[in-house]
């Protein structure tokens, strides 16, 4: 007690801050950082979950480098990112921009856009999976067939499957991004717009010179957030292709699904951990690159 009363105010504040922080720090240390560290160690070992772990150095990484499936999966992962992020960014901005101007049924429409975000990804993926089936059960193909257009192989195709899986993922994330964008739009002071009006500039100039530059922090947040989401895509892919996860012919398989498959179907924990480390590095690099590109001046 004496020890405590001898401390300066500043030091006391630090003690209290750490006292309150202790729980989350412990939580993060034990639940997050310890397993993360272990994953790094396991990536240099061979382990089938049952037997002993044996140290094999860089073998897992060498195997990964020479694995054609890994490179296919690597490309897929970036396809999800490079199609998904810009598409959802543009769509959600357009929706938010117009929704912001709309008064009639504003709340109701906003709710409609937000609803898919609250829906379980698993349930949604299964519903879309059935939408995509061939006749006689698929909604889309039944519509096409009823007007005499040949069926489209949505999921059973090496080219169409990835966009087909991505579509509901983009749609589901839209609601959240719309809300964030609207909050960003509301935060822009009206005085800028009034000044622009007095100067008599057109809507395009207002959009590109005032709205978008002032939305920069919002855009950074959404880009980083949705990029991480698309790089980690799993539940949509897994549920829409459960019988043949990541298929057909690995054309929809993202890195996370490959990790899951290696670990819990192949029981090759070391190899899975090496893939996890690679995913970690990709996430780190992509996030850093985005923060750097979109940094404020």
């Amino acid at each position, binding site marked *: 007690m004496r020890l405590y009363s001898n401390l300066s105010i500043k030091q006391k504040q630090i003690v209290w801050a750490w006292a309150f922080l202790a729980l989350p720090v412990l939580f993060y240390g034990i639940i997050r950082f310890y397993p993360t560290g272990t994953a790094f160690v396991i990536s240099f070992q061979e382990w089938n979950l049952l*037997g002993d772990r044996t140290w094999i150095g860089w073998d897992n990484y060498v195997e990964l480098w020479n694995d054609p499936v890994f490179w296919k999966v690597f490309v897929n992962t970036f396809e999800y990112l490079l199609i998904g992020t810009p598409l959802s960014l543009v769509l959600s901005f357009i929706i938010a921009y117009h929704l912001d101007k709309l008064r009639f049924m504003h709340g109701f429409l906003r709710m409609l856009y937000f609803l898919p975000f609250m829906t379980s990804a698993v349930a949604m993926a299964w519903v879309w999976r059935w939408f995509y089936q061939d006749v006689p059960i698929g909604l889309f193909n039944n519509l096409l067939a009823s007007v005499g257009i040949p069926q489209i192989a949505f999921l059973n195709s*090496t080219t169409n499957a990835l966009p087909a899986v991505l579509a509901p993922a983009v749609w589901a994330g839209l609601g959240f991004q719309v809300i964030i964008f609207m909050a960003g739009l509301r935060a822009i002071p009206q005085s800028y717009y009034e000044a622009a009006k007095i100067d008599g500039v057109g809507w395009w100039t207002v959009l590109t010179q005032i709205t978008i530059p002032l939305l920069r922090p919002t855009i950074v947040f959404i880009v980083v957030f949705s990029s991480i989401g698309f790089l980690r895509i799993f539940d949509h892919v897994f549920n829409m292709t459960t*019988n043949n996860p990541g*298929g057909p012919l690995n054309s929809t398989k993202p890195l996370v699904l490959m990790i899951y498959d290696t670990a*819990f179907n192949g029981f090759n924990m070391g190899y899975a951990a090496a893939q996890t480390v690679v995913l970690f590095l990709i996430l780190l690099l992509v996030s850093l690159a985005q923060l750097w590109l979109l940094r404020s001046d």
Partner: protein
Amino acid sequence: MTRYLKGVALAGMTSAMALFSSAVSAVEIEYWQYFFDARVTAMEQLIENFETANPDITVKMTHFPYADYRTKVAAAIPAGEGPDVVQLFYGWLNDYVAAELIQPLPAETFPASQIDDDFFPMVQAMKDGDHYWALPTAVRSLALFYNERLLDEAGVEPPTNFNELMAAAKAMTKRDGAGNITQVGMTAGMTAQDHHWWREGLIRQFGGEPYLDDYQTVNYNTDAGLQALEFYASLFSGDDAVSAIGFMDEPQAAFKAGRAGFHIDGSFRIGSLDKTRGLKWGVTELPATAEGARSNYSSYWVNAITTKAEGEKYDAAVKFMEYVTSDEAMQIWLDVVGELPAKPSVGLTDANASNETYGPFIRGLAYANTTKFANESGQRQLMVEMVERMTLEGMSAADSLAIAAEAEQKILDDYYK
């Protein structure tokens, strides 16, 4: 009043003593299996019967979703938690033995020579020298399910050979005006049981041997393998296809919905088909070749005593193992789950072998082979991709077969190295 109180006190003491003494002598052992409704119900019945016969032993059953099962077992037993008796897939035995998760069954209670005589021969994969590591209650095999209504409508009979199968399937296939299939003569898809049918059924029927050296060497990149693959692909390719991959999402779903004439599946499907309203189905043996050659695939789950069981728990576990591999347990398992008894003496009784539903499966056991998988889902995936390369990328059967054989050999080499 005092006498009454004394009486109550005495009664209370006696019952407390009774409770206490039973608590001392009772052994509780734990049993783990994965969750499948009928299996859990059957095991509950077995446990109840076992506890009645052995009042000093209680068995606590825990079950998990299949997806978590292996991970949980692996984590629990080394930590001294978890089951005393555990259920595992026959293909996992090597891993479990190597990791010292299970201990051999005592040879005095389970003499190997006796078991060799009593059980179907495929169970000998669980044998090591003069003792067995694990034993099944039930085994599974494949058979051909058919939709009676569709057969009647097309005026065809359940087939006995490939020619009849194809002819009947053709008669039951329906298309819409644009040529899209709206009803398949037969389901197809390597994701379901077809990869077993192809490996152990078709290849052998076309005169091949799918693996050599105790399933360590792939041997289907041969004429027989190619013929088997071409026959299988003829189901869903060409203008006169009788099937479509991915039709109605899953083969069993198409059959349940009454949109498929034939469907190859295991005996474990019987329960869920029975619950399907409005479906009139029957089952027959897998079709033979024109020359009458037959082959089937069988697999099984076994029970084993874990290394955690010691002392009186070990003795109780041995007793429990004896019961779950008894004739009585096998009959209960057949009646409740629909899985076939692991002993010919129970399975091949006249009543069971001529049973309309179980008969075809039980007769199939006589010519069944059991694949020893290194990584079942990985090896299945190669079969799925072998077909996809042909249907989606237009690769020839021979090339696709060669790629699959090479990839599977790599999985086997990695596992057995």
